[in-house]
């Protein structure tokens, strides 16, 4: 029998919940504590937990290194791109009000904040994963006796 059976079962139950919680933290950031940074770290923690329990090779199949590399840059570009979009629409850099004509409810602000926080989420998640892959990929597998 697998000695990590309890860990595997519990983490299989927990990992989807952690990811959903991370997304909640992001999309509810306007109303409650949290935002893109915390959400990115939480989602990365879910993947790292998966890597610890099921092995780093399985985690690399779920979240490939190419994806991590791409998303790290894409997050910065999404953030900067939002700023450039506001420039093109005639506002200042990162002045979200021009993103949507509904000025009375500040819908543009809501869209802009969601977009830049999404950029933060992508970059933070990818960089955390990249650092984890770079360090953990080097270490030998943990010997059975040290669990």
């Amino acid at each position, binding site marked *: 029998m697998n000695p990590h059976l309890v860990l595997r079962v519990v983490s299989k139950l927990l990992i989807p919940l952690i990811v959903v919680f991370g997304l909640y933290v992001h999309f509810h950031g*306007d109303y409650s504590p949290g*935002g893109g940074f915390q959400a990115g770290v939480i989602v990365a923690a879910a993947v790292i937990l998966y890597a610890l329990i099921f092995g780093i090779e399985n985690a690399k199949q779920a979240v490939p290194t190419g994806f991590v590399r791409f998303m790290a840059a894409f997050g910065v570009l999404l953030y900067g791109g939002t700023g450039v979009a506001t420039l093109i629409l005639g506002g200042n850099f990162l002045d979200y009000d021009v993103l949507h004509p509904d000025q009375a409810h500040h819908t543009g602000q809501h869209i802009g*904040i969601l977009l830049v926080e999404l950029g933060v989420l992508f970059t933070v998640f990818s960089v955390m994963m990249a*650092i*984890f892959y770079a360090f953990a990929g080097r*270490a030998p597998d943990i010997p059975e006796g040290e669990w």
Partner: protein
Amino acid sequence: MTEFDWTQLLDYALMGMLLAVGIAIVRLRNLFAAVMLAGVYSLISAAWFVTLDAVDVAFTEAAVGAGISTVLMLAAMLLTAREAEPVKAIRHWAALIVVSVAGAALFYAVGDMPVYGDPNSPANAYVGMDYITSTPNDIAIPNVVTAVLASYRGFDTFGEVVVIFAAGLGVMLLLGLNPGKKTGGEE
């Protein structure tokens, strides 16, 4: 007569636990235990930030300090020895002197700090109050922290994202994402 503030007891308890964990980390030889206690230290700090009403900071501390950095330290520890080398006594004294002087300076500065929650303190009085009063009109979202981070100071946050990206880029360039894999040819 003012009523006794029971949350003070919570603060003292958390501070005591931080002190105990800190001393334990210093005295431990086993690196695995030290890394785990560092995670515990972060978690207690997060609880303490919650009692200070700094929920966003507490959130980040719990996720980054207790979660990710513990895992990264463990991953780094696997590459090195499990026990710390014994240190010569003379270096303990040097460290103690540095810590004592820095600590005394910090205690000396405590007298100049504003009282906790003081509405007239510099951090609260000027732009801080401005943001709180104008967020409902400018941004119309309830969480002022998010409004400041993503909208009022959006440019600063952009810089932070670039810093995180640069840090990740540095690690990727130095260590590579697939260190286990043998790469052919010169690199």
